[in-house]
Structures are given as structure tokens and as C-alpha cells.
């Protein structure tokens, strides 16, 4: 299951979705942004996506994971819009008959999702300023908006 959502990530629903009586192991990963990044205090995040491509890319990653590991079920969820610090912005859940496969697949999925799914984070700091996060791109003063 692939989901882009404006709402709080519902972990109970996700765990219900991946549960399977043939699966011995379920692994859930939740990614949360920490309060402090560098020396600025992040107060709020907003996420935006190239939605149709993000959905397609997430579905491709699920397919690839299913080809690589014997998975029963797989759920990928990313939040869009405002996300408070401490709330999960992303969830990956997989179930498998084998716990090694479940750990490896979940770990691979979050790595590749963060590298390839077209979603962008905007950090809003306690200074009142905000900027988009583009790893590897130097921020110019014009990128920080009041």
C-alpha cells in the first residue's frame, strides 16, 4: 500500500494492513525530524511532493522490494503539508516469514525512498525564517525567506 497523506500517520492502521497469519515478522520504521538541525531550532516542517511521480516511484520501490525479499505485505506512507516536530513524516512497514528479510527490506526501502521519492521538506525555524532542504545544494541567502 502506498499513501501520501495530510493526516497524522496512523500506525495501528498500518500494522493492521501489514499483518498476515503467514508472516512471522513485522518491521515498522518511523522517521521523525529532530528538533535541532545544525545550530538552528526547527519548529515546524512542511512537506511537498510531485504527487503523481511520488506515488509511482513508491510503487516501483515496493515492487523492487517484493522481487528481492519474500514479503507478505508492504506499506509506504509519507506525510505532506505541515508536520510538527516529533511527529512521524514517513512510515515503512513490511511483513515476512523471515525476520532477516523484514529488517533488510524495511531498511532498504527507507534508504531508497529518501534518495529517490520526489518529496521535499521545508524547515521553519524559531527565527521566523524558513527554507527548502536540498541535500548537497549550498543555500544562498535568497533561499531563506522571512
Amino acid at each position, binding site marked *: 500500500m502506498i499513501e501520501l497523506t495530510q493526516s497524522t500517520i496512523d500506525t495501528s492502521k498500518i500494522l493492521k494492513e501489514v499483518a498476515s497469519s503467514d508472516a512471522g515478522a513485522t518491521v515498522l520504521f518511523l*522517521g521523525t525530524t529532530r528538533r535541532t538541525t545544525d545550530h538552528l531550532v526547527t519548529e515546524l516542517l512542511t*512537506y*511537498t*511532493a*510531485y504527487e*503523481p*511521480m*511520488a506515488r*509511482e*516511484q513508491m510503487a516501483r520501490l515496493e515492487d523492487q522490494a517484493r522481487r528481492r525479499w519474500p514479503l507478505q505485505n508492504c506499506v509506504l506512507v*509519507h506525510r505532506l503539508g505541515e508536520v510538527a516536530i516529533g511527529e512521524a*513524516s*514517513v512510515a515503512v512497514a513490511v511483513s515476512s516469514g523471515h525476520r532477516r528479510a523484514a529488517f533488510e527490506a524495511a531498511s532498504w526501502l*527507507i534508504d531508497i*525512498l*529518501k*534518495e*529517490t*521519492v*520526489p*518529496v*521535499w*521538506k*521545508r524547515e521553519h525555524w524559531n527565527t521566523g525564517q524558513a*527554507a*527548502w*532542504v*536540498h*541535500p*548537497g*545544494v*549550498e543555500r*544562498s541567502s*535568497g*533561499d531563506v*525567506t522571512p
Partner: protein
Amino acid sequence: MKIRVKLFAAAQETIGRDEITVELEEPANIAQLRLRLSQEYPKLAPLVSKSMFAIDNQYAQEDSPLSENAEVACIPPVSGG
């Protein structure tokens, strides 16, 4: 041919629009689009040099050919998760 390019995040913010159109001579590929964008929108150049491009919701290569009907997007380094 006219290629419309979707913009996101800092690229969208820099230009103030979510889509721009550039004129390219046929045949054209991603490398040529990248060059043209940097020339026509110098403020976008640093970000464009680090961006991927997508054609019809899939990541494209530098030599992927462009066509007028394709949905083209500039994908600056992603920061989901």
C-alpha cells in the same frame, strides 16, 4: 518545440512559478534542456546543476529524448523522510 517543465520546492520559489516553458530545437534531450534552463534562468543554474529530471513520472537520463507531449519535471535533490 516547446517543453513545459514543472518546478518544485526551491526551484519553484526562486522563479515564483510552478511551471516554465522553454523552446528547444528538435531533437532535444535532457542535457540540452538542462543547459537551456541554466542560460535562460541564471538564478536557477546552481539548483539545476544538482537536479534530476523526470519524463512522465520516471527519472530520465541525460540522453533521454524529449517530446512536446511529455510531462517534464525538474527534481531538485529530494529531502523526504
